[in-house]
């Protein structure tokens, strides 16, 4: 049983806000969905390590070399930010003073 308090905490961790009504509806969804997921308890064990046999994908790292010219994408990336100040992305002050 998932409590409203727990969901409020999860919403905070996820940086989301819900109205009390929306949170109650979500609680109902959670009960249904995790009720379905609970069938996994029929399977013994919870070792998440993959056997070499089961893993088909290997991480392939490339050389740590620059492949683009310095500054090639700077402007395009900064341009995507909703608040830009020169060559910076602007955010609110988070240290010192009153928050």
């Amino acid at each position: 049983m998932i409590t409203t308090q727990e969901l409020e905490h999860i919403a905070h961790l996820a940086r989301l806000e819900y109205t009390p009504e929306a949170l109650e509806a979500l609680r109902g969804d959670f009960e249904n969905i995790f009720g379905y997921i609970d069938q996994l308890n029929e399977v013994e064990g919870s070792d998440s390590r993959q056997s070499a046999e089961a893993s088909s994908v290997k991480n392939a790292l490339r050389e740590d070399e620059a492949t683009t010219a310095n500054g090639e994408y700077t402007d395009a990336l900064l341009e995507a930010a909703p608040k830009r100040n020169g060559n910076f992305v602007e955010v609110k002050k988070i240290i010192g003073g009153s928050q």
Partner: protein
Amino acid sequence: MLMDLTKLTLEQAREKLDKKEISVKELVKAYQENIKSKNEELNIFLEVFDDIDDQVEKAQAVIDAGEARSLTGIPIAFKDNICIKGRKASAASRYLGEYVAPYNATVTDKLVPHSPVFLGRVNMDEFAMGGSTENSAFGVAKNPHDTSRVSGGSSGGSAAAVAADFALLTLGSDTGGSVRQPASFCGVVGLKPTYGSVSRHGLMAMSSSLDVIGPITKTVADAKIIFDNIKGKDPLDSTSDEKDPVAKKGVYKIGVPRSLLTDEMDKDVLEAFEADLKTLQDKGHEIVDIELPSLKYSLAVYYIIMPCEVSSNMSRYDGVRFGAHVEGKTLEDDYKQSRSQYLGEEVKRRIMLGTYSLSSGYYDAYYNKAWHVRTKMREEVIKVFESIDVIMLPTSPTPAFKIGEKSTDPLKMYLTDIFTVSANLLGVPGITVPTQKVDRDGKLLPVGSQILGPHFHEEWLFDLGGQLE
């Protein structure tokens, strides 16, 4: 009599363009006219590009110079989550709205040198989360076979665009069935390639251990042409890989996990599936029953692993780096307001499910458990592929459902993925081929069958899929 140019397959269009029987302009115009007359009703294209004439001219020049490649002058469209430099890409989200891609996806980089004609970007469920396109911030993409029904999802726009002759072929992305299920609902071919065989660079990340880009086409042969042109190892995707194509076989041993075909399935869809098995049997292939005991848990595993990865991938939408921004009292407030006001309900629901599953005290019970079962599934399937060549399943348990039928019950919507998620969890390739039609309220709705093969065995899927057409 005038030929309807939108009925040409990629192979046929290529031949006519190269022999100068038709011009790029004529071909593209035929599609543009369909878009113009029917897009308002079907809501497939979110944007039709305004530089199509320039693209047409350029493609024709390439053909005239005798330098045509597979896709030169071919009218195509991408799902709205695949980046084309300098063009908008919104993932059908209000959050990204006017976002312009600063770089090309690798698949875009691979196709641009062909000089295809990019017609526009097509509708989808917001950030690829959904099975009907009802989660698009810009409204549902309707099914061309019956406009009271969904086109499927999340690549509903990509599938409907091919079915409605709005584009000769499209690209979609498949995380739990998002290419195959809409292709089945719309009566077209959809390929989910082996995980890692097509680069994910420039595809907006949803669930990184499951996502793959795949083509939606009119024929299996066309799907092969696109796959051959977009696959390959990419330094920009550390999980990408490549292998030499496997040789075709004369006779295939086809395994059917019968215990998954329960009474809850639509009776007509089951009948259609049996008919497809019979077709292949009549062609000399061997059909055998197989047991994959863990496969019945695939949907439960999927609805843990996918939301966990979603919650992590969606953290980049913070109101700071791109897209929407809502001014709050503090920086944390900015995050919360921007996300809460601009992300859709289903996206938020999955972020919440994932955050919960990954939170302290639940991690072992959910995330680790899910990986444990996923590993068991993989071991079972690798073992079963020692005695059979491919697995066959229906693509979806039902034909296209009505708009609104499942949109208020998330679990009911999730259950439509039951036959498709396993390929993503296993990383194996799957193809859906439209084979039958079933009657619903006097309308004939397409139904597809799905073939799954071992990793990097797409050639077998093309071979067998072609025999089902």
